[in-house]
């Protein structure tokens, strides 16, 4: 079984991003970039499927500038077999990414496509669902458990009310939630080995996809500041403040 995994290069989750002074965009100069945490979980899940003998080949894909090859190398070091970069400069929206991934799906014919549920920069939570629609596949979003058997995949999903399990016909799309697994660290020998694994560079034209944006960023601003709070000395003062000052209890 072939598994395709989509990985995105994003600002590291520890970085507190701020708007630029002119409010035109966020300040991204000299900030640490990493693989999107949900994508790391997606790679780990694919690697576990391979270790169980369910998956035979793992292909990692990223859409972005040359720099995203760094994240593809991370995926290769974690256990992906080969990688495809679709080279695009500037912003690409989930719809265009889903179209590019769909182009790759048509060529590679994977049985399972694993994506993160959300990129932590744009917080979109769209790409997997869009890809599933375009490819005519079922979708198991926000997965906390994935079991492949007999041409189907059972996916336990984290939903607002608790957990829901669905069964999808393969090929299918799965998007990962935080509790699906705990990703491993790449070992040094595997990082070295990853440098020699194949990485193919493609362009949107190869898939006939127009990546022009439909939604433009007008401006960015910091969120409303909260007013400075106070420290209370003890529980009695806390209860008094909540009753008589804030009037919330």
């Amino acid at each position, binding site marked *: 079984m072939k598994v395709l995994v989509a990985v995105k290069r994003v600002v590291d989750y520890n970085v507190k*991003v701020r708007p630029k002074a002119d409010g035109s965009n966020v300040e991204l100069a000299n900030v640490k970039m990493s693989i999107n945490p949900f994508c790391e979980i997606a790679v780990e899940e694919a690697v576990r499927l391979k270790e169980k003998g369910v998956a035979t080949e793992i292909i990692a894909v990223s859409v972005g500038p040359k720099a995203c090859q760094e994240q593809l190398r991370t995926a290769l070091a974690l256990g992906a077999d080969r990688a495809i970069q679709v080279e695009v400069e500037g912003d690409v929206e989930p719809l265009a990414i889903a179209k590019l991934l769909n182009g790759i799906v048509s060529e590679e014919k994977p049985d399972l496509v694993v994506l993160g549920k959300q990129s*932590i920069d744009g917080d979109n939570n769209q790409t997997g669902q869009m890809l599933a629609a375009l490819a005519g596949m079922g979708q198991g979003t926000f997965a906390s458990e994935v079991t492949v058997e007999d041409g189907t995949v059972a996916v336990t999903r984290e939903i*607002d009310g608790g957990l829901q399990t669905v069964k999808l016909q393969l090929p299918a799309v799965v998007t990962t939630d935080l509790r699906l697994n705990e990703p491993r660290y790449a070992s040094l020998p595997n990082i070295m080995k990853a440098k020699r694994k194949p990485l193919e560079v493609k362009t949107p034209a190869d898939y006939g996809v127009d990546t022009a944006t439909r939604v433009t960023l007008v401006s960015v601003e910091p969120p409303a500041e909260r007013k400075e*709070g106070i420290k209370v000395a003890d*529980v009695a003062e806390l*209860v008094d403040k909540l009753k008589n000052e804030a009037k919330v209890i």
Partner: protein
Amino acid sequence: MSVLVIAEHNNAQLNAATLNTLAAAKEFGSEIHVLVAGSGAADVAASAAEADGVAKVFHADSAVLEHQLAENVAPVVAAIATNYTHVLAPATTSGKNILPRVAAVLDVQQISDVIAVISADTFKRPIYAGNVIATVKSSDAVKVMTVRTTAYDPVSASGGSAEVVAIADVTDASLSSFVGEELAKSDRPELASASIVISGGRGMQNGDNFELLYKVADKLGAGVGASRAAVDAGFVPNDMQVGQTGKIVAPDLYIAVGISGAIQHLAGMKDSKVIVAINKDEDAPIFSVADYGLVADLFTAVPELDAAL
């Protein structure tokens, strides 16, 4: 032209998130229609018809819609969506699951988590875990968007008297099937709509200690939430996670107990009206958003709070 809102429900009741979404829909100043896709959900359709501001309700009733599988619901939405200027769903796990599938079918770039409508094509939404608010402008013919429910007060559940129109054209995409679900059973208010929320983090040490929070919650009529660390450690179930990748809450009072205040947690609660933090580390980042901070051991402070209420 009018605006379409996708109702969230469990076939028996209309979920309150729909009422918040209707409030966002009202901003466009045009006629509002609601789609109820479900199985045996006539009561839901009737409730939607009574909600304030609703002019028409489309009711698609089919066994294949019972569990809101995106593969089956999305085509029903897409089939009528082009009659509208805007298609809205609440940014709940159900809305997030279904709506991008609709947007892709319509060839539209969805806008997620809208917190403000500036004009018919311009919206505000949080990005980077809410550290930045972006103003974005869409050039798509139909605007497809999820609405962050905490940004809008719900419209009244009564006052409307819309007509209900049946939609018959429903098919099984045969891509997915429902196997089962484990829904949290709790007598406490739902996190999303509770006016007071008390949440515990890794500092709680184990699931049993959450009893301390449940006691306080029951006195205050509060919902109980948790940090990711508490959920990952198995203290409490996933549906209690508050944050960037969990639930977004904005109650009148949020009490964070043994939670450090990581960016990802703050993303889910920093729009609460009043924030209380109880933490033994005076430098914990949670204090930077707290209106009232108490530097104390939670195992003495929470029982004291319980006794004082």
